[in-house]
């Protein structure tokens, strides 16, 4: 034993002091963003920052305008010049020329060449992503142009080249193995630090081909909780907040310091049914379920906007696809019960329908990646109950839907489907309503007519020619209901009034940092 007196008090003081330090000392990177003369524009969004791989996180870099694609998108959602000033297609519809914009430089100063662009595209094609679904034969470079040769005509090529997985990066971005180790793009902002999972720091790229952006420094913060995002806006910590919970909207609108914009993106929350299951193989059952839904109620209460009730697949904003005058999907419990009765379902003792001993009971699967889905599911559950359909809600992982689509164990799924991955909705339609259905679309449902319609659309470029086909498609889906539209979506962007030039992009392709500037609050 140590009998020698030790200076215990001193040791203790030391410890306490240390503790104090811990409390007060600023955490790592304290100085960041505070010492700068001009405030960094803070953009807050729900999407976490993943790695650098364009296939998984390209969207982050297009939204923040760090990297750009050959083809852009205009206000109407049609393909527009991007890094390519224009394109031509040979009469055979196979060979495409994309003329590169001249004088474009990467953030590391190196010039953009056709070769580099072609290389990026080849990588994108080899990787997971939409481009790998395009019937491409070769991608090569000619002087000042990227040449894409197809196996068969495919009019959507430009739209596919607007997808964020096809961003053009400087050769220095890749390490020999082909892994992206830094993002060197051509956009108006360069990524100074990419700190997964929550932050990206941006700096203005002085010699962007589009001119010098007004705001010098910006940063993106990923904030998962909708409530927190709203508070970030209210507290003035954030300059621009993307995607606000419907509940918070009214409050934010009342706030004089904030400007709220809402747009309707081409996104629909829909019920994906297994048309192969005995429950839903009969179209009458699908229609009955659709008739049981109080879409307006759902939209009013949960989305705080009655107009979002989806009475057909596409919202009005999607021109050419939203079919005017299509008989809307409405609520009619009597009609629903009638249809179910015709389909042979009789109410059992507990009010749940039965047919030769089998209850009309199914599992409604959804996931929490979109915060509105679980509440919607709970409401749908209650409404289905009223016509005698017993749904058990299971909230799981996003992957459950495609996985169970594959092994056929899905009866019913509530999903949020975006038709903007490829700016042209057809891109998604091809994926979802082809002959053997799609991971997020039809399941065990196919219609020869739909298939042929899609095939014909795939080679047509002229909107006027496409319009009737698209309308026909909408009619079939409305009648057959391989998927039941529930609500459309609304994207709310809130900006502090000290920032001017904020524009909400329905396609969620870009936050439009380059157009923003500091205004007078």
């Amino acid at each position, binding site marked *: 034993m140590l009998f020698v007196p030790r200076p215990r008090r001193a040791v203790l003081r030391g410890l306490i002091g240390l503790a104090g330090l811990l409390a007060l000392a*600023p*955490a790592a990177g304290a100085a960041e963003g505070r010492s700068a003369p001009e405030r960094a524009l803070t953009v807050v969004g729900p999407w976490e920052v993943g790695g650098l791989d364009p296939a998984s996180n390209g969207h982050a870099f297009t939204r923040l305008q760090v990297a750009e694609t050959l083809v852009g998108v205009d206000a109407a959602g049609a393909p527009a010049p991007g890094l390519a000033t224009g394109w031509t297609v040979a009469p055979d519809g196979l060979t495409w020329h994309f003329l590169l914009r001249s004088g474009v430089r990467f953030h590391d100063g190196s010039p953009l060449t056709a070769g580099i662009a072609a290389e990026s595209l080849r990588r994108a094609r080899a990787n997971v992503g939409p481009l790998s679904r395009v019937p491409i034969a070769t991608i090569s470079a000619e002087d000042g142009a990227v040449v894409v040769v197809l196996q068969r005509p495919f009019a959507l090529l430009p739209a596919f080249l607007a997808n964020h997985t096809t961003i053009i990066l400087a050769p220095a971005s890749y390490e020999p193995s082909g892994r992206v180790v830094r993002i060197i793009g051509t956009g108006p902002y360069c990524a100074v630090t990419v700190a997964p*999972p929550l*932050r990206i720091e941006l700096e203005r790229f002085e010699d962007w081909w589009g001119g010098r952006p007004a705001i010098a420094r910006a940063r993106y913060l990923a904030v998962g909780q909708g409530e927190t995002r709203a508070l970030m806006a209210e507290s003035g910590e954030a300059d621009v907040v993307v995607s606000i919970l419907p509940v918070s909207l009214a409050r934010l609108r009342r706030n004089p310091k904030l400007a709220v914009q809402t747009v309707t993106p081409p996104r629909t929350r829909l019920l994906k049914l297994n048309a192969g299951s005995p429950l839903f193989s009969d179209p009458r059952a699908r229609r009955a379920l659709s008739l049981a839904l109080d879409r307006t109620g759902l939209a009013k209460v949960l989305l705080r906007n009655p107009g979002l009730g989806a009475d057909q697949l596409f919202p009005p904003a999607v021109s050419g696809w939203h079919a005017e005058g299509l008989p809307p999907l409405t609520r009619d419990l009597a009609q629903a019960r009638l249809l179910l009765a015709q389909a042979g379902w009789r109410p059992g003792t507990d009010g749940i329908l039965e047919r030769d001993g089998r209850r009309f009971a199914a599992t409604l699967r959804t996931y929490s*990646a979109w915060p509105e889905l679980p509440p919607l599911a709970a409401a749908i559950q209650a409404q289905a109950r009223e016509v005698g359909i017993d749904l058990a809600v299971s909230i799981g992982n996003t992957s459950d839907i495609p996985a169970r689509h594959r092994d056929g164990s899905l009866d019913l799924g509530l999903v949020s489907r975006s038709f903007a991955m490829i700016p042209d909705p057809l891109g998604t339609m091809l994926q979802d309503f082809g002959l053997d259905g799609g991971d997020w679309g039809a399941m065990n449902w196919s219609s020869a007519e739909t298939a042929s319609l899609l095939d014909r659309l795939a080679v047509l470029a002229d909107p006027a020619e496409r319009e009737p086909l698209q309308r026909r498609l909408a009619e079939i889906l409305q009648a057959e209901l391989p998927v039941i539209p529930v609500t459309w979506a609304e994207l709310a962007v809130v900006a502090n009034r000290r920032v001017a030039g904020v524009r909400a992009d329905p396609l969620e392709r870009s936050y439009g940092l380059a157009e923003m500037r500091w205004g007078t609050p």
Partner: protein
Amino acid sequence: MTRLLLGRLVQAALVALVVGGLCFALVRVLPGDAAFRIAADRYGPDALTAQAAEAVRQELGLDRPWPELLLRWFGELAQGHLGNSLVSGEPVSEELASQLGPSLWLAASALVLSLLIGLPLGLVSGLRAGSGLDRLALIGAVALRALPPFVLGLVLMLVFSIRLEWLPPAGYGTWREMALPSLTLALGLAAVSSRVARDAVAAVGATTYYRFARLKGLPERAVLVRHGLRNAAIPVITYLGLQAVYLIEGVVVVESLFAYPGIGHALVHAVIARDVPMVQGAALVMGLMFVLLNLGVDLLCRLLDPRLGAGR
């Protein structure tokens, strides 16, 4: 002393083995196709397709026999590697490092705050055990204890960010962003530690030696500081040793509410995404941190109470 260190060392080793094996086994036997889960986490809900999942399966060789995978993990662990994340492909150690830092800052500051709040409160209520103030403190503690952390956090945001506009509601980088989350955690901790402190103080106050210190003629302050605090601190510290785990892992909600990067966040994310190496890595780090922390607690207690060192 050496025995103590040795014991903790053995514990650390055991933890490493158990954590590694258990996480691996559990994550393996979980229902749901790992390839799909990983793909979902990589490409997001909109871009996830079966085709993507298949690509993932090929790339990661998820269909390889599991003993091979487990053994490789342990093998790499022995050399100090934690493997690569299945989702991002980055080394687990790097991913954790970027989140461990903030987590530690958060935990440490929360711990200190909770002491600054809990101890004085416990002290006064302990000295006046049974008084109105004591009862009030109890009710306060219970209230804090009954309030889910995210509700508490929200309230704090509303007060400090919206009403007073003192602190940012979320983000990270400087102490300002850290203040609210650590306060949220600290209050939850202080709720209980204040009661522990209160009981400890009350107990010490009832001892003969404490009263004799008074009769010696020491001023009350000296009595408290010289004979009260040290003796009362021992149970409090031991308790905090247990609670610190809660700090490291219980923070998940707080982290997501305040958009603060942390290891709890990493763990949940990894489990959901079936990112086995990340799960193992995160769990391992947490486990070892716990061991380390308890070592600290043991040493501190011995420092305060020499009887413990004497093997009594």
